[in-house]
């Protein structure tokens, strides 16, 4: 066995009087890929943030190379060779890709100025390595979420660290980029870098982990060696209880509905008319590679972006959707891809977030009836098993997966005609994933149309009744559930008919 390089010993962390980590131990060996697993809110991100100097810990010791260390700031951690890809994107929008990658440690010329040439050159190399096709001078604000995630990865790779922490790096990546990432990880491993990898995608873990450490409710929940690793054992360690807890109030079924989009054209692909139709009772998946225009398409349908041309019909009637509120009025809801920017309001409480689109239902004469509001919020929290100390918790204090649940839950108290999910299970644990799939199915069973964009092909194959595959802004193929194979989907996604 390789040499252990990092020991985290009996780490405790409290936020106010909420105890998040309780005596957690973690050892990392040289050149291994350690998967850190656990349900949403188990404390994975918190533990890693402690390791890289974002949070101070309440109690415990950290030893690096058998020497006790004190990490007071992100800079300290970097100096010790610890790099971190955060779960949420943390890029500076007004800088370009190269500027973001080298932010805080710009190479300088002889005269002390930032060496732009060198930055561009090295960035181009890094981008090729992660598979992002963009110029280093592209402003980050122009990038899609997935591309931004790739930039984050490139940034961490550029650090040449001893310990690289990746907190759900692939949550919005497709197989292509993931495969590239895994190549890179293997490469790093061979050079002796240790990787701590956090993900909720089981198959990824099976593929790359040398060892799995499971956290459960802020405590060590067990450990699995590569040999012991299989889906069932993992789930047992992580969840340890029956996943199925459906307590949904059954709603009356909607009349049959249909949705048609005819030759709609979007701003990003103005010369590419797209037509498709949806039927109630079915879950339709949209597959495609990063940047294939899936987000653009569904956002245009939901009124976030304006359509250049084309028309949409709901139940055969032409409807005009110019803003999200138009869409919502028609019963068309969107769970957006970028939850931190679009899906939730981090400075508001769970209750307020859950009730935001439904306030009118909870109010009389525009006055919010708080009892009704918190009752409904409580129901959703139970429903989705959102882990929180209280309903008044601000969203920014929730774990990533729990935030995602709130982003979905805010639409579930209403009757949807068309429910659009864009990357719905980003950062969601296995248990909750199953729960979300069940919710989708129930929505469909109740007569809603469900449209799911996801980069996780396995997920799409499990849940969809029908799949549309996109390539560069157009729908390059359509598959029914008995035709789903990885091969066919990929070949459409790469644009081969």
């Amino acid at each position, binding site marked *: 066995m390789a040499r252990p390089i990092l020991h985290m010993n009996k780490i405790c962390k409290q936020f106010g009087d909420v105890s998040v980590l309780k005596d957690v131990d973690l050892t990392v060996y040289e050149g291994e890929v350690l998967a850190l697993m656990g349900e949403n809110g188990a404390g994975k991100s918190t533990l890693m943030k402690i390791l890289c100097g974002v949070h101070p810990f309440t109690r415990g010791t950290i030893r690096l190379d058998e020497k006790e260390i004190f990490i007071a700031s992100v800079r300290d951690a970097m100096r010790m060779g610890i790099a971190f890809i955060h779960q949420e994107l943390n890029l500076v929008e007004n800088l370009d890709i190269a500027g973001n990658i080298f932010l805080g440690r710009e190479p300088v010329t002889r005269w002390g100025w930032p060496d732009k040439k060198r930055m561009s050159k090295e960035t181009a190399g890094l981008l090729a390595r992660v598979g992002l096709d963009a110029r280093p001078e592209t402003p980050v604000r122009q990038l899609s979420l997935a591309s931004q995630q790739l930039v984050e990865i490139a940034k961490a790779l550029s650090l040449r660290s001893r310990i690289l922490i990746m907190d759900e790096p692939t949550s919005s990546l497709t197989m292509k980029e993931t495969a590239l990432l895994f190549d890179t990880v293997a490469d790093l491993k061979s050079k002796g870098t240790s990787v701590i990898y956090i993900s909720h995608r089981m198959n990824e873990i099976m593929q790359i982990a040398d060892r799995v450490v499971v956290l459960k409710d802020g405590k060590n929940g067990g450990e699995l060696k590569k040999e012991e690793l299989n889906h069932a054992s993992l789930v047992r360690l992580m969840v340890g209880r029956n996943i199925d807890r459906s307590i949904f109030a059954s709603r009356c079924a909607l009349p049959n509905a249909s949705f048609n989009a005819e030759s709609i054209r979007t701003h990003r692909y103005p010369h590419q008319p797209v037509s498709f139709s949806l039927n109630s009772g079915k879950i339709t998946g949209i597959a495609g590679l990063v940047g294939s225009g899936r987000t653009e398409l569904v956002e245009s349908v939901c009124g976030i972006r304006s359509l250049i041309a084309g028309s949409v019909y709901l139940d055969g009637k032409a409807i005009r959707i110019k803003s999200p509120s138009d869409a919502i009025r028609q019963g068309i809801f969107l769970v957006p891809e970028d939850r931190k920017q679009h899906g939730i*309001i981090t400075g508001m409480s769970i209750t*307020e977030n859950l009730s935001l689109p439904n306030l009118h239902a909870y109010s009389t004469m525009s006055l919010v009836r708080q009892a009704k509001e918190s009752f409904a919020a409580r129901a959703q929290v139970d429903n989705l098993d959102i882990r929180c100390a209280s309903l008044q918790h601000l969203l920014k204090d929730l774990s990533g997966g729990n935030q995602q649940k709130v982003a979905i839950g805010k639409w579930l108290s209403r009757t949807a005609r068309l429910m659009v999910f864009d990357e719905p299970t980003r950062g969601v644990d296995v248990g909750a994933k199953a729960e979300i799939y069940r919710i989708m199915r129930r929505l469909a069973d109740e007569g809603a149309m469900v449209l799911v964009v996801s980069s996780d092909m396995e997920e799409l194959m499990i849940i969809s009744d029908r799949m549309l595959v996109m390539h560069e802004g157009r729908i390059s193929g359509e598959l029914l559930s008995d035709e789903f194979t990885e091969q066919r989907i990929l070949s459409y996604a790469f644009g081969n008919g």
Partner: protein
Amino acid sequence: MKKEKGIFIIFIVLCSVVSIGNPNFLSAANLQNTTRLIGIFGIFSIGSGIVIITRGIDLSVGSIFALEGVLLSMLLVSQKIAWPIAVMTVLLLTLAIGWCHGIMISKLKIQPFIITLCGLLVYRGLARFFSNDITMGFGYGEGFTALQRLATGNLFGVPSPFILLLVVGAAAWVFLHRSVYGRYLFAVGQNEEAAFFSGINVKRMLLAAYIISALLAGIAGILLAFYTNAIAPSSHGNFYELYGIAAAVLGGCSLRGGEGSIIGIVLGAAMLQVIQNLVNLLGIPSSLNFAVMGVVILTGVLADKFIRRNKY
């Protein structure tokens, strides 16, 4: 309520200190004077605060006072128009002003700072132009004594501006903290995009905020006009927008939007007035007036910081 606790405690401490320093602070006459001013300043501070909650800023308040005062005097004194009509006219004008600000900011997406700065300049200019730079007064109020009494009088010994503040404050509290729209305002201030994705009509909410601010400035402006009983167009209400903004920020609003409360804003406005009262009552030389004000505010904010920190 948590956020206001700090400023509330500080306010109480301040009042206690002043009344120990000079028991006259609690005399009926002084309370009347001070609450009258708190009433006037509180009303427009609420407007400034609401705009700040949406992440904006309204710099035009002081100039609205000047323009409104000049017009009011022209209508009442020179044109001898019946006062209810005159009051309606100026309030409609302020509404229109707020609407203009709101449209420019929400539709044309120009920075609120710039639009309301232009407002500050233009309305002041118009006030000076209309009045020919001559002080416009209300004299002895022939023909509109009722209005004058309404604006400057007392009701059961309580100055009417203060009563009006209680009414406006209560309405604003319900609007901001209890109604759907208040929630939307906070959401817009916190994260405009997420609010948009949730189906909130962001533009309409911004428009509403600026209209409310201008309208409350309009109401306060009438009270202010009768308080001074004369409008010197070049100086009336000069830089009062800063009082409004300062009251809101002291009361817990953040210029980064999405934070604040009506109670906090009113307490902030009250605190600013008590501080000025303090300077006069404790016999501090006028030249130290500003310094004392600054030190008291700073102490208050630092104390607030520590009160809140110790709660953890």
